[in-house]
């Protein structure tokens, strides 16, 4: 089986087989990060540009570490220190970067669809590292890897995603990914943060977190994306936390082997209480660890075959 794509722009466009290929490749890459010498020569001489138009610690570092462990050269551009502040357009930035002959551009951008536009302008591979409230494919892949590792499978599991669904690219990518692999996804959030028609992409909807906890195998908590809210969508943080935040009280009805995921950054005491975030059900740091392996797999599958 081969990945025949130039770009990874969304989970929506990937087939079940492609997702499974990426996950099994990532499983093999985990071993590299556990060695004393955490580096393989596979992609030496390849150049990977991380172009980030939004703040990021985890994702950017993870892509950079993944590139370096594959022996590729990674260059990071954050827009605060680039020509973007002088008014350069995405297209011009892309064309100029392409003139330096990179093999892959990893793009994070506040506008949904920006990676797709970039992919049309450049010949090199493009990986979407999060675009607006559209998709964040590598995050969903690492979430799926974390769940698959814990349960040995994804098919038949109940996945509950709680929070600001409307503004969450993580939620959207995970709904596509988990349903493609045969899980049942329920999204939970206040009506103001629930996009209309979300059930059309294969998930069920609830407005009460209590209803979606007791049969969940996986509970994924999301951060409220205040930076994307144009108008206030809930009265107070405290009220949101009381109704939709996950704490040990709400978790009492959950299954004994439930696991908690969060894509980070977490807001302690808002969507998740500290004792849950640091507790035995939490796989938050496994997610981060798996992120490196998933990104190594994406680089390998995009750059490890010939283009012809």
């Amino acid at each position, binding site marked *: *089986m*081969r*990945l025949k794509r130039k770009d990874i722009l969304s989970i929506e466009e990937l087939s079940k087989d492609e997702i499974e290929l990426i996950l099994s*490749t990532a499983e*093999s*890459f985990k*071993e*590299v990060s556990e*060695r*004393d*010498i955490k*580096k*393989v*020569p*596979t*992609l030496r001489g*390849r150049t990977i540009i991380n172009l980030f138009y939004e703040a990021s610690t985890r994702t950017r570092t993870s892509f950079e570490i993944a590139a370096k462990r594959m022996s590729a050269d990674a260059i990071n551009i954050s827009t605060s220190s680039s020509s973007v502040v002088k008014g350069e357009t995405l297209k011009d930035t892309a064309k100029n970067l392409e003139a330096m002959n990179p093999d892959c551009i990893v793009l994070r951008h506040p506008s949904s669809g920006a990676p797709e536009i970039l992919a049309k302008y450049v010949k090199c591979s493009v990986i979407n590292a999060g675009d607006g409230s559209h998709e964040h494919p590598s995050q969903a892949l690492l979430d799926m890897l974390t769940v698959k590792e814990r349960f040995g499978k994804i098919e038949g599991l109940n996945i509950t995603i709680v929070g600001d669904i409307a503004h969450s690219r993580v939620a959207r990518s995970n709904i596509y990914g988990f349903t493609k692999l045969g899980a049942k996804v329920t999204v939970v959030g206040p009506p103001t943060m629930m996009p209309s028609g979300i059930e059309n992409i294969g998930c069920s909807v609830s407005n009460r977190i209590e209803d979606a906890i007791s049969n969940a195998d996986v509970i994924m908590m999301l951060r409220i994306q205040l930076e994307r809210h144009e108008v206030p969508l809930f009265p107070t943080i405290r009220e949101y936390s009381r109704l939709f935040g996950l704490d040990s009280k709400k978790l009492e009805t959950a299954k004994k082997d439930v696991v908690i995921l969060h894509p980070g950054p977490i807001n302690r005491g808002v969507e998740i209480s500290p004792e849950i975030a640091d507790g035995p059900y939490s796989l938050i740091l496994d997610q981060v660890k798996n992120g490196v392996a998933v990104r190594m797999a994406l680089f*390998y*599958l995009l*750059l*490890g*075959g*010939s283009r*012809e």
Partner: protein
Amino acid sequence: MKKNIMDAKGIERALTRIAHEVIEKNKGIEDVVILGIPTRGVHIARRLKDILKTIEGVDAPVGSIDATLYRDDIGMKQEQPALKETDIPVSIDNKKVIIVDDVLFTGRTIRAAMNAIMDFGRPANIQLAVLIDRGHRELPIRPDYVGKNVPTSMQEEVRVRLRETDGVDDVTVAET
């Protein structure tokens, strides 16, 4: 045209002889670590370990070394080569590492495997055991233990089948 080169009995005899040669060359198997190249090399490595145990009464550590990430044709073939398992159960520093594979051909896989092993430590030496040596080396690599030398043409394909993966033990040569 398909020629039978080895049957189950032949494979077992060859591995038994290799086991004796390993013991003789290393004066026992105290510091020996056996690493098979996936997939069939790993099965042969496990069989070799079992034979060594019946002769010497010692369990040599056995693992697998996947050389895929060290190949010299990454990005040249259409398909990305599939990754397989690397599992090195013990430190290989100052150990005598025996690489085991089913067929030795160009030697490029062995070069890649040696580079991979070096990333895990500094073995005292690295030796090579293969069930079949079919010739046509493209690198200066020579096996220490050979089950059978099989002169072949470039048009021929050597196929090793093992119980563990194929349900049957035999080696055949066929025109492609």
